[in-house]
Every structure is written in C-alpha cells, then in structure tokens.
C-alpha cells in the first residue's frame, strides 16, 4: 500500500502537525455541541436518561474514529516538487496521489482562514484547466506557502503550454 503511493525517488515534504490539532479542536467543539443538544433533547423528551447514554457512547465512538482519522490524514499528507511536476499524496480513508505538470498550472491560491492563522497555517491550491485535479496542500507554514507559491509560478513559466 505504501509503495503504491510512494515517490519514485527522494522524500515527501510533510505538512505541519498543528493542522491535526486545529482539526481535532474543531471536531471536539462541533461534536460536543451536537451531542450536548441531543442529550438535552433526550432528557427533555423522555424525561429519563435512558437515551443519553447510548447517544453519548455513539458520539464518543464516532469522535474517536474521526480523531484517529484526522491524525492519519495529516500524517499521510505529502508533497514533492520534482523537476517537471508537483506530486501530492493525501487521504486517510480514500488514498490519493496526484501528479501535476508545472506547465498545466493556470493559477495558484494561498488561503488562510482565521483559525488557520491562529495556528500559523496556510494552504496552497493549484488550479489547472481540469476541475478533477484537486491539488491542494493545507497545513503549511506561511513562509513555506509563499515559497511554494513563488516556486510554482516560476516553474509554471518554464513549463508553459497552457492547454
């Protein structure tokens, strides 16, 4: 499995582990709210706590699974700038590898939401003429995102041939 998504040579560059912390924080807050509402609703409606326990249990199990998946996802995320193309590997449940020639790049976005900025993260997304390409790298340090973006625009010029 690992070799299926391996780099032909060299090492994957990894994203920052703090992305997992951010996503887990969001997970805990959202799931906590949902479970809280469900439990309260159960208590109000049935006036017993019979429903509260299974609901909480299911919530906890699901949360645990998601927690594990987030960690795996962030660990699996890798990218590499090779001579002619950018390689990106990601996914925990569904594994994906995408190879984009630099010359295919139409535009590059660097994005950072408020939470991401609080965690010192930014994402780089490369758009080609195909919507299926989906070449996005989240969880980069802002300097690394800027470096990658500049490098990609620079290499895009060398690669040329837009369509």
């Amino acid at each position: 499995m690992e070799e299926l998504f391996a780099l032909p040579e060299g090492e994957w560059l990894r994203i920052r582990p703090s992305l997992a912390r951010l996503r887990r924080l969001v997970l805990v807050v959202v799931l906590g709210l949902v479970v809280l509402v469900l439990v309260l609703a159960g208590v109000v409606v049935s006036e017993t706590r019979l429903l509260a326990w299974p609901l909480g249990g299911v919530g906890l199990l699901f949360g645990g699974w998601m927690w594990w998946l987030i960690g795996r996802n962030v660990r699996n995320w890798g990218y590499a700038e090779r001579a002619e193309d950018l390689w990106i590997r990601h996914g925990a449940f569904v594994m994906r590898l995408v190879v984009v020639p630099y010359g295919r790049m139409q535009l590059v976005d660097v994005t950072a939401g408020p939470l991401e900025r609080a965690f010192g993260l930014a994402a780089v997304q490369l758009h080609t003429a195909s919507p299926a390409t989906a070449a996005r790298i989240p969880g980069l340090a802002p300097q690394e995102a800027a470096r990658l973006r500049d490098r990609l625009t620079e290499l895009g010029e060398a690669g040329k041939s837009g369509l």
Partner: protein
Amino acid sequence: MSDPLPDHVAAPEEDEFRRLSPLTPIARSAIFLAAAAYTGGRQVIEEREFTGAAIAAAAVLVAGAVFGFASWYRTKFRITATELRIDTGVFNRRSRRVRLDRILEIGVNQPFVARLLGLAELKIETATTEAEVSLSYLPLGEAHEVRQVLLQQRDTARAREAGEEGARGFAGGAAPPSAEPVPLVRVPLSWQVKGLLASGETVGLLLLGIAIGGVLAAGLSLGAFGIGLATFGGAAFSLVRKLVGWWDWRVAVVPTGIQVRHGMFSLTTRTFNVERLQGVRITEPLLQRPFGLARLELSVAGGMKDNGSGDEGSGIALPVAPLDLVWRLAADLIGADPSAVPTTGPPRRASWLRPFGRPWLAFGMDDRLVVSRAGLFARRTDLVPLARVQSLRLTQGPLQRWLRLASVHADSPVGLVNAQGVHRDPAEARRLVQEGVERARVARMPRAAL
C-alpha cells in the same frame, strides 16, 4: 501583439498594489441596502418611532458598512510583468496569482447598480472553470485601462516565451488561410434512417403502439393512457427533431480543423479547432451495435464557434456512421492511431465492485494517446492525447484497498471525455501513472525538439 514592447518599458509603474473603487461595497450590496432602508424607514414613517425593526435595520446597515469597508480595504491587486495578484478576504484571506500568459479573455461587465455608479467589473477568463477571477468594481475608465494593460502584458509575456522557445514552426501562418472548406464526409440518408430506427425512441414507440393497439382491440377506453400517449408524442417528436436537425450532415476540413454543417430547415454550422481538441468519444449505442454504427463526439476547450441556432448535440462530429469510418476520422483528428494502443481490463476480483460491465472496462496508453473504454449497454471509448492531459491521479478507496485494487485517472478539462482506468491491479495502476507522467512530458514537448 503587433508591437512587442521590451518588458522594462511595459512593466515598471504598474508594479504597485492598487485598490478597487471605494464605491464597491455600495454597488455590491445595493439591493440589500435598499431592503434594510425600506424596512427601517417604513417603520419610522408609519409609527413615527425609532424602535424595533428600525434599530435592527440600522444595526444591520452599520455592520454591513463595516464589513463592506473592511472587505474593500483588504482587497488589493497588482500587475507585474508575469502575473496578476489579487489579495482578498477579511476573515478567510486569499492571495491569488494568475499567470498573465494564461489569460484567455477579459470581459468588462456592468450590472445595473454598478452602471448607475459608473463602475464596471473585470472578468478575467483562464482555462480553469472552478476558480473565478474577477475585479469588481473599478471605475469604468480604469477597468478598460487595466484590461488594456493586462492584455498587453499577456502578449508581451507570450512573445517573450515564444522567443525563448525558438521558432516553433507554423504558429504564425505557414498554412495560408484558404477559406474554402474541403468536403470530407457526408452522412447519407440511409445511415440516418438506420440510426433513427435503431434507437430507444423507436423501440419505445413500437412498444407503446402495441400496447395501445391491444387496449383498443380489447375495447377499453383510451382515457387511462393519457400519459402513454404523451410519451408516444414525445418520442415521435424527438425522432422527427433528430431527422430534421441532423439532415444532410456534412463534415469538411477547414484550416483550423473541421467544420460540420447540418439541418433540413435551419442550417447549423460548427467549427472545431483541432489545436484545442482535448479528446474524442466514440459511442456505440446498444441498438446500433448490430448495424455496426457509432457516434463521434469531440471535446474542445473553449474553441467552439457556433454560428447556428440551437445547441442540439454541440460536440457531435458524426451523429451516426459505420464504425470504421468513425475510427478513421477519430484517428485523423487526434493524429495518432488508437487501435495500436495496448489496453487491458481490470482483474476478475473487480467484479465485486463492478458486478455488471466489468468485462468492458479497459484502459491503456502509448506514447501519444490515452484510451479508456466502458459501458455495459452503450460502449464508450474515450481517446485523449497525452499532451493534453492536465494531471494524472491514482486513487484507492477502503474497499479497493481490501480487494487490492486502485484506479487511474487522466484528467481533462471540463467536457465529455473522461479517461480513467478503474479497479486495476495496484502494481499496474502505479506503473501506468509513473509511465504516463514520463510519456506525457515527452508528448508535451514541441515536435521540432524531438
């Protein structure tokens, strides 16, 4: 393009961040503003009091104004010799870079409110469809000026690249643009009739006809068959429309590619630019297969010129023709022989994920072409030149992992072709992707360099 300015002449004074028109928030939220003002204002006037909805409306207005201002303040753009940079976002920040040589066209739009304020929106079109690049709003004069600068810079950038690349052959005009189309194929009436008879509509008509005949023979009222009759009419109408629309279908060669002309009453002419051809699809419908007929469709990126009416079958090059003719035309258009491409099917265990149609899945590539086949009923063969592939992907879902399978995708721009090899053996999928990356790199190189 006529005066290739040296870049140090064109670039310098544009090298700073600029802002959009300060009236932008007003132009963007005019309807919203009017609604809030109306709600609040009406209450003030009717009740002569400044309470309730009025206060809420005022609060919304203030919040909207603050956000609108912040959004305007945060939005900046800059044009350099090689790229357009647009920074936006109050909470979610985004910095977007568009390479100038990738700009296809720039439109100047004036929605109603913006027009009242003398503003305009610049819509910058690239080959991506998923990301919208626009500058809204700029004062109309400035919009035209920015458009001019961008197009000029684009042409300079392109000229510079062309220079670096050396003389790339016939881009300028080796072939004299002779206007006369050279006839290539004409679809005779007999093919059309065969194609129409061997279609779902005809079968539906026959079945319905038999059913209605049976009902009449049994002496029942036809009233209950209202829906059946409507379907009958619909199918008949569809048949007639195809017969009329596809009447006298001709394919001709023009300097830029091929041209199709068809129609009994209204004549439709369409030109497909071969340089922009992203791929072709050959479809063999179930009912036409016994007659050896097929359909040829083209996927062209933004290069389709439509000088006719209607959008019926916009990508169709041949609606119905013998299979070998369709293959020959496809091979000529692609410029490679698709029958020489070795293809393989998924392993037997893929039937767990694709219980029907697994034997008809096939995928393969050679140095020039990606070929992918699928279809239990209608057989579809997609041909994509490797030089046009945008990216290569390898995916594996949890079930596939469990069954030791993986899928390969060769991504094309939006269009009908979709070259993919689903549920392959992982080792083979990996090999296809890795070889594909190398082969595509070679295929993209200009011919002269080989």
